[in-house]
């Protein structure tokens, strides 16, 4: 029975592709960009697979997808834009437009956090992982996760306040 360290590559892809895409998509908001990041992630991963056993594919893919997506977002230096996954019609129900704008704002604000805070916030709230899981994935202590998360929340809340002109 294949173990997680040395599975068939096809099995690896089948098991992890959706998660990789999902993580990237939640961070970037763009299907196109999420596909690009997924490609990068799997290209890196296949090298590692060729080089020898990987201790945790899940941890590897979650970490790679998160960090590569944040990297791409920073390189793009977008202003508050909507990913094509967010764009909705202003002629349709306004609730949809409201949600889309909120999503775009949060992606931009979260991706402008320090890298560790951005990664932790995304994994906790977008990927809905637990503190200990995130700590293991990023190879940091759970306390560090809690501290970084607190700082991320404080910073995002202050940005909302600025956004609302409540300075």
């Amino acid at each position, binding site marked *: 029975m294949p173990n997680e360290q040395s599975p068939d*590559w*096809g099995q690896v*892809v089948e098991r992890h592709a959706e998660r990789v*895409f999902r993580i990237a998509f939640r961070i970037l*908001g*763009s*299907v196109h960009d999420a596909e690009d990041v*997924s*490609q990068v992630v*799997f290209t890196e991963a*296949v*090298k590692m697979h*060729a080089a020898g056993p*990987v*201790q*945790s594919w*899940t*941890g*590897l893919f*979650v*970490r790679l997808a998160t*960090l590569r997506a944040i990297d791409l977002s920073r390189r793009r230096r977008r202003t*508050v*834009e909507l990913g*094509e*996954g*967010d*764009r*909705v*019609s*202003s*002629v*349709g*129900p*306004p*609730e*949809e437009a*409201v*949600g889309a*704008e*909120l*999503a775009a704002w949060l*992606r931009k604000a979260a991706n402008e956090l320090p890298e560790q805070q951005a990664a932790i916030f995304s994994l906790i*709230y*977008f990927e*809905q*992982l*637990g*503190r200990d*899981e995130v700590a*293991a*994935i990023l*190879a*940091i202590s759970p306390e560090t996760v809690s501290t970084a998360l607190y700082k991320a*929340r404080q910073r*995002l*809340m202050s940005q*909302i306040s600025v956004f*609302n*002109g409540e300075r």
Partner: protein
Amino acid sequence: MSQRNDPHSDAPELESELQAAVWAVLSKPLDADAVARVKARATNAQDEHSRDPINLSAQDADQRTISSNHRPASKYTVTLPAPFATKSFLAKCLALATGIVVIVGTAFMLHSPESLYAEAIDQLRAARSFTYITHIYTEGNTKPSETKTMVAEDGRRRMELAGGTISISDSSSRVRLVLISDAKRALVYDQDIPQPKLPKHDQLAWLENLKAHGDKPDKELGTKLLDGRSAEGFVAKQGQYAYTMWIDTESKKLLQVEHEMFAKGTSITKVVMTDFRFNEPLDESLFSFNAPAGYTVQKQRPTPKVAGGEESIIEALRGYTKRSAGKFPKSITEWGDWAVLFSADSKDGQPNEEATKVLAHLGSILPFLVSRSKDDYQYLGAGKFLNDEHCIVFWYRTEGEKYRAIYNDLSVSDVERKDLP
């Protein structure tokens, strides 16, 4: 620091505005086709690597840790989150704009110079029930968002949006039911409470205008291939609206209608309608105002009547600046700022009565602007404050060379063209 009721997470609860934003991110379903493409390319990645093997250096080996600051990952078991389940707060977020019903008219006049054109027009005129898909293109994005619209013979309408939200309107274009599929939540708008009559510019106004107008286009564009089919193009204008139509030269069916966004200050660049289907049977259940089984029903506060026009612009700005320490919004046609600001007023997923009224005023602005040429109005409030030196935040042309201006103190007066910024 409170805990979420999630066995897989011990993350603190977020403040309401932030939580709303998180659920807005989570509400977007994954593109299954994109996932399939990722799998295909990832599978091929190994083949490509095999053809061009890379001898890993020690440096490459270190890349397994992703960052030199991270220790090598230790083996652990991750309990994967269940396929994400949205929560009722999604509905709260999406329900923030209760009371806003924005219908943008797309007046559409077609002229039929020849039999090809005439047959397409006749098909539209004879349409009782019909469906089509609207593709909305926005700045910076090549892929549009898509909405499927179905119209029953009696005028009831169903719109299925890209994010999984479905809205059903009655024959008077009043929204009666909004279904949020991911959250299994139904927002119900009371039928018994008189609703304000919607502005004249309805999404389907183009059809009515078509029926009432003549049969010659303003311009012929010649023939091209459209989705593999030979199509002839025409431009039809009505006032400030211009529509480009493409008709299948063989089947003589309408293939595509395209127009730009008819209001300034939005990110929408182009609207394209395709996949027209006329008089095909449409299941009655598609237009039911009753929530489907399994949905949580939330009754919505009725849409208050608002004056529309200049008064609504002033009241919307008044409501916004009241909450923003006097700062004007970036736009009166893009609702992002408004959503964040008014989310603080929500309770049980609905804004309070006063906020609902403000949002109703906001919703009436777009139809007012769409009815005008883009050259006949300008919003200038971005970055301005109530207590700034007296300045114009919005102006519009009324008739002839007469203009009206709204100032940063929300007063209004007649002005002359030369006085406009």
